[in-house]
């Protein structure tokens, strides 16, 4: 019962803040609302027995990535942008229409979904006994070792790419 109440509150808050992200004119306010959406999602991860991901969500997404966004918004001088009156009304109507069609498609598929997949080896009580973070760490360094190492290479490439792109002369 408590889970249902918490889910309802967090889901409603996530949808409202996500809508405010795309409805605000000022990108700074959008970024703040996106941080709130990430916090709601972190709460939902806690409901789904994923405390490690909830912590990572707040540290990496709400912390690192959104700070990067806020820095870039502050670096850019967007005063001129705000005065532009957006044209392309037809494009907006089409965009919203296509988005709603997508929503109906996704919703109808997900709503009538029956879970037929094979159950895995980690029921909640076993994960609780071992510890969520410990189970994830053990899997990362055994079964998923190669993707984990490739991820480190990806991050290195991203660092080098960002530095080269941000230099004065390209």
């Amino acid at each position, binding site marked *: 019962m408590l*889970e*249902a109440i918490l*889910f309802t509150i967090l*889901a409603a808050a*996530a*949808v409202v803040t996500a809508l405010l*992200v795309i409805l605000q004119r000022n*990108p700074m306010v*959008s*970024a703040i609302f*996106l941080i709130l959406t*990430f916090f709601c*999602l972190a709460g939902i991860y806690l409901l*789904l*027995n994923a405390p490690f*991901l909830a912590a*990572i*969500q707040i540290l*990496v*997404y709400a912390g690192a*990535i959104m700070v*990067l*966004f806020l820095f*870039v918004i502050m670096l*850019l001088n967007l005063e*001129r*942008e705000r005065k*532009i009156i*957006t044209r*392309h009304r037809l*494009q907006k109507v089409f965009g*919203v229409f*296509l*988005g*709603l069609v*997508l*929503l109906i498609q*996704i*919703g109808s598929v*997900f*709503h009538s*979904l029956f*879970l037929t*997949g094979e*159950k*895995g*080896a*980690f029921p*909640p009580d076993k994960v609780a006994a071992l510890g969520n973070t410990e189970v*994830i760490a053990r899997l990362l360094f055994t079964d998923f070792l190669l993707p984990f190492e490739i991820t480190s290479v*990806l*991050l290195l*490439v*991203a*660092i080098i*790419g*960002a*530095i080269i*792109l941000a230099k004065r002369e*390209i």
Partner: protein
Amino acid sequence: MVPLSAYLVLSGILFSIGVIGFLVRRNLIVMFMSIELMLNAANLAFVAFSRYLNSMDGQIFVFFVMTVAAAEAAVGLAIILAVFRTKETVNADEINLLKW
């Protein structure tokens, strides 16, 4: 217990909001934020399936998605900065040439 479909429908709603934001908004930074929203919707579906199938693989995948999102944000924002430096705008309608 909350049924799996509730989480998945929430994930679908968030994804659609991201798609609408990407199609409707013309500010490059807000479009980028919409992409982050879509990635988070996919993450939510991963975690929900992982919980209801008693498997940890979904949570590991979310870990990787977050790493890719961090790399993507770093490179993407650097590109936006470079575009702003040459064109003095972040409006997607005015950035219509590959080379200037």
